[in-house]
């Protein structure tokens, strides 16, 4: 089967889609701003200060929409890229970054803090989001490390064992989260629920930095492992015979995914389906070759998340919907469509 679209056509299309998504994300919102004002406010961020813009406009564009757009871009790209990495590692197009326990570990860390803050710990309110993010990140890394340890045997990483360990630890995390839920009071419970649905709400530059570092790392490093991922699809021993240090590649893929998903979840909560559906869709368009698949997924992941966030912001304005609901509402039916199509 040849890819549906030649990459020479697809890449410009994806890049254009991403640019469009970025522009819409900056230009649209519950507050309607004239396009010219949005542009001027953006130009002012560059420090040129060519024109005067209303302080309110400037604030909305530069302090609310721009950090939010950057956050969406990074979270989308990272989730899609790590989704590709996990599908390659597990040689299964249905794999998802959550398989190695990152997401459930992050949820565990987050619920510990959300419930703990209401019962045992008192923190300045301003610090809460940082502590929450740090706990989610640490929880994700910790559970992934445990899954990885459980998957090791005789100096080798057994991917199948890891998969089972991931399922077991996800169930265990779920049980502990359930315990926290049981302990939680009414308002804490709602905070937990909302965290689990994800949101780009309240993005600020100070909270972008950690994710930026991780996202740049993932975006730089994963495409450099495209050949190794291709070889891994043949089989682990085949990849070894093609000259790859398979153990190292696996270790790096897992670390990369744990850091990437951990940071993304820490910054924006749980956002499902992006890591599963975007790689899947891109594979249909460019084929399974990771050299093409990885960049395409990063572009499409960023664009999809920005558009989903736009919907989340606009549908119930002036309130806003958790973005996880939007991605699942788009993702799940699409996934069902893929299942039906591949069966036919």
């Amino acid at each position, binding site marked *: *089967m040849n890819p549906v679209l030649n990459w020479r056509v697809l890449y410009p299309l994806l890049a254009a889609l991403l640019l469009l998504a970025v522009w819409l994300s900056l230009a649209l919102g519950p507050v309607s701003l004239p396009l010219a004002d949005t542009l001027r406010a953006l130009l002012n961020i560059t420090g040129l200060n060519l024109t005067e813009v209303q302080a309110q406009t400037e604030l909305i564009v530069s302090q609310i929409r721009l950090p939010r757009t950057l956050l969406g871009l990074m979270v989308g790209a990272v989730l899609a890229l790590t989704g590709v990495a996990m599908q390659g590692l597990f040689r299964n197009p249905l794999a998802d970054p959550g398989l190695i326990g990152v997401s459930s570990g992050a949820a565990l860390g987050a619920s510990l803090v959300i419930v703990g803050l209401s019962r045992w710990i008192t923190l300045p309110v301003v610090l809460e989001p940082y502590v929450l993010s740090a706990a989610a990140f640490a929880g994700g890394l910790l559970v992934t490390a445990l899954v990885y340890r459980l998957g090791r045997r005789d100096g080798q990483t057994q991917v199948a064992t890891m998969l089972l360990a991931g399922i077991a630890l996800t169930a265990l995390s779920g049980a502990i989260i359930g315990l926290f839920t049981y302990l939680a009071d009414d308002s804490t419970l709602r905070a937990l629920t909302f965290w689990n649905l994800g949101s780009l709400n309240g993005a600020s530059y100070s909270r972008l930095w950690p994710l930026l570092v991780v996202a740049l790392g993932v975006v730089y490093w994963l495409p450099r492992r495209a050949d190794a991922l291709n070889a891994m*699809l043949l089989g682990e021993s085949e990849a070894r015979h*093609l000259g790859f240090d398979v153990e190292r590649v696996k270790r790096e893929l897992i670390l990369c995914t744990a850091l990437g998903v951990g940071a993304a979840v820490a910054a924006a909560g749980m956002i499902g389906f992006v890591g599963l559906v975007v790689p899947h869709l891109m594979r249909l368009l460019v084929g399974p070759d990771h050299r093409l698949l990885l960049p395409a997924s990063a572009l499409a992941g960023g664009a999809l998340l920005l558009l989903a966030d736009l919907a989340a912001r606009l549908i119930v304005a002036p309130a806003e919907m958790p973005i996880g609901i939007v991605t699942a509402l788009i993702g799940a039916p699409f996934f069902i469509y893929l299942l039906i199509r591949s069966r036919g």
Partner: protein
Amino acid sequence: MLQAQQVSVARGGRCVLGDVNLALQPGQVLGVLGPNGAGKSSLLGVLNGELAASSGQVLLDTQPLASWQGRRRAQRLAVLPQSSSLSFAFSVEQVVRMGRMPHDTGMAMDEDIVNEVLRAVDAGHLAGRSYLQLSGGERQRVHLARVLAQLWPGADGQVLLLDEPTSMLDPLHQLSVLDAVRRFADHGASVLIILHDLNLAARYCDQLLLLGDGSVQACGTPEQVLQPAHLHRVFGIEVLVQRHPERGHPLIIAR
């Protein structure tokens, strides 16, 4: 050149291969024969580094195989496993081109090599198809093309290990594929091939190794190894051995 020196392999406390000595010679095809469970795959595993020898050692040139670093080793040693679990919709050329990963020979040259090896295994017409749409035999040929591409065009010092490359092929393609392997060896590479068909082994191999119960039962030219007594001892079959009327190699006929 790949050598096994008194190699034994234990799996789960049981010795599955004992005291094997062999040396692959440049330009020669060594056939490995034996019933199921005789240790053929263990031998292949220890020769390609997937299994550790419990005693003895495997040398590539004069250095232990384990000391060869990934890419350098891949340029010298290619391995075709019995079956592949590839389940992604790569195109046939993409699969074969993966054989070129250990090399930096450039897109244009890789392209030429991919076309050559596909033609060599009589799979030129599969170019452009999706791997997943191929039949089992076609897939097997594509993977053979991939490992050939990894060492192409084949030279002295290179080693190709093949685990039953003809198991899923029709009679015509069994011959054409083994012809291709033979021609590849003629360029100077050493080839080890696990086969089940005694007549194919007699026809294409320079040397044969008969494995039974984890140890070498006979070793030498096809004429030396393919004797009714050996075959009866190892396989438990009664055979007549005759001469191929045109080509002169032994011809095994079940009684």
